[in-house]
């Protein structure tokens, strides 16, 4: 798997965000270097939703934070708004922040417990001194209404009085206050109950249409991203396995890892016996990843070639790309 390559990138002039060969490594100590993201390229075209899917430890959250320069990157470029964020100084990046926002995994921890709901949503507006205080108050009410929270009832309460789902609504309102063009959602529903998950996913869809957002959606759950994605990028140990449209990804996964991932999702229907592909073992360490294709240690189709040569992403037709020497038919 796990390949590099940029065959899947599209015309740079159309993309909102273009990430090339991004590498993020951090040192636990002098000798132990965690290779969280190892040369990932991706692009987002205006209005699309790219989902990044992978299991824990594959580097998907690191990727999201690194794109927004919330953690230092090792090499590669992140082009957003016409400039390479990795080359800009701190203040220049800061000035671009209103255009790129993020929603975090833990809805409760991402809201300061000392602030009221209104203060939380107004905060980004205050940082950037948008409008008069009346205009700000109006905007906050409008945002809260649009995410389904009644500002007259809830506006003056503290965030910890709310459930996870409602906190996530508040987070969404806050991230939209500055009317960003790019929204990165880092596992926004994984801490929520199934019935609440669906509410938040629908809300994100509505907001995307209303504000014309381009979205990157990070998740460990293939089923969650299915309905909302334009394209899905599957990650394993810091590398890209496969990029495809949802339907072709689920119907005919080309990468053996994707195939196993799709086959592992339990289906709530006892009559359907899934062609379960059980993967052996668990992902190896990101400190000392396997040579060549990083998936080869668990791959049913691995050969000599996979150990020596790293597969590059190549087109499989229909805008789908896979990084595998022996893709599935």
């Amino acid at each position, binding site marked *: 798997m796990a390949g590099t390559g940029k065959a899947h990138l599209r015309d740079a002039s159309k993309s909102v965000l273009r990430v090339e060969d991004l590498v993020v490594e951090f040192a*636990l*100590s*002098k*000798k*132990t270097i965690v290779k969280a993201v190892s040369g990932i390229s991706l692009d987002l075209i205006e209005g699309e939703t790219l989902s990044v899917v992978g299991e824990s430890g594959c580097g998907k959250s690191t990727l999201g934070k690194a794109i927004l320069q919330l953690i230092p990157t090792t090499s590669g470029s992140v082009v957003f708004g016409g400039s390479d964020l990795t080359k800009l100084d701190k203040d220049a990046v800061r000035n671009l922040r209103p255009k790129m926002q993020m929603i975090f995994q833990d809805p409760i921890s991402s809201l300061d417990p000392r602030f009221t709901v209104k203060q939380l949503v107004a905060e980004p507006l205050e940082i950037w001194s948008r409008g008069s205080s009346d205009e700000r108050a109006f905007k906050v009410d409008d945002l809260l209404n649009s995410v389904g929270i009644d500002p007259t009832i809830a506006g003056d309460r503290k965030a910890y009085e709310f459930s996870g789902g409602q906190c996530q609504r508040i987070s969404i309102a806050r991230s939209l206050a500055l009317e960003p063009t790019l929204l990165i959602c880092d596992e926004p529903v994984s801490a929520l109950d199934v019935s609440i998950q669906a509410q938040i996913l629908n809300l994100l869809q509505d907001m995307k249409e209303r504000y014309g957002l381009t979205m990157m959606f990070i998740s460990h759950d293939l089923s969650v991203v299915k309905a909302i994605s334009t394209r899905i990028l599957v990650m394993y140990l810091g590398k890209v396995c496969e990029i495809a449209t949802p339907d072709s990804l689920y119907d005919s996964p080309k990468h053996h890892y994707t195939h196993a991932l799709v086959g592992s999702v339990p289906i709530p229907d006892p009559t359907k016996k899934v062609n379960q592909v059980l993967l052996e073992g668990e992902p190896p360490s990101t400190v000392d990843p396997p040579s060549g294709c990083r998936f080869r240690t668990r791959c049913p189709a691995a050969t000599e070639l996979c150990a020596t040569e790293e597969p590059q992403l190549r087109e499989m037709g229909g805008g789908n790309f896979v990084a595998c020497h022996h893709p599935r038919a």
Partner: protein
Amino acid sequence: MKSTAPLQRLVQLLLVVVGSTFFVSILIRLLPVGLEDIYVVNPDPVGRAKEISDLGLDLNPFAFYFRWLSGFFRGDFGSYVYPGPTLEPVSEHITRTLPVTLQLIVYVQIVALAFAIPLGLVSAYKVGTRVDRVISNGLFIFSSVPSFVIALLLAFYIGVQLGWVPPLGYAPPFCSAEDIDSATACGFGEHFKLMVLPVVSLSIPLIASYTRLLRTDVIATLREDFVTMAASKGLSNRRILWTHVFRPSSITLFTSAALNMGALVGGALVIETIFSIPGIGFEIALAIGSRQYFALQAYIAIIAFGYVFFNVLVDLTVGLIDPRAKERRK
């Protein structure tokens, strides 16, 4: 990664020793009064200059410190300086007084842990009940009473009024020929009699704080799934408490007990003064009273070394008690 982390830690700890002694060194050179005015009384300018240079007082503070440090690592702990100047090595004082204080501190730790462990386990296991409330509240008050207050009261009521044990003094546990000649108090009996009050006064506040530490951690451990898991194997409560709960809950207790060794020297300083015990605490108080700043520097270096030693000890042993600790430190 396993090799670099402890090394870094050791470097930091050595910095602590160097830092604290350098701090004292600078401090005594910044005295409102020059050391030469205290130690050098020779009126003859030539003799005076020589004496000053013998003591290193003509050097700048850094050179002065370096001179001291290199001496220290060669085993020269410095001297008491009496006008003249006559020098008396600090090491003699240390070999005489340090064992006495170590004895006291070790007794105190043993007594404190011996009471605190059962009390902490019981009050945590019975959390919220009357037993717990009595233990916790009672100990809370004791933990707030300074040990010198307890010492003064004990010395007077037990030592003087009731006369159960001598109110002050010290006797070594083993009699030397000299002790027998001069009929000085010595031997185990005398030793323990005289140690009772100091040990009690220092350990009461400690029992209280150790019990609290253990209680908090045991309560937290009792809520863990692995305790429920152990119960679901059908083990008895007593077995669960000792084999599953105590060890993972004891890290904070043992860590703070080890790191307390230094603080106890501070406590011992007052207690030894009150009970006239010739330990290092008493010695420090005397050195400060008689302006023996070189000696003070040596004592502080010893305490800082002790602090570092116990820090390293904790680092090395915590991993044995709880394998998670190694990871958590990162």
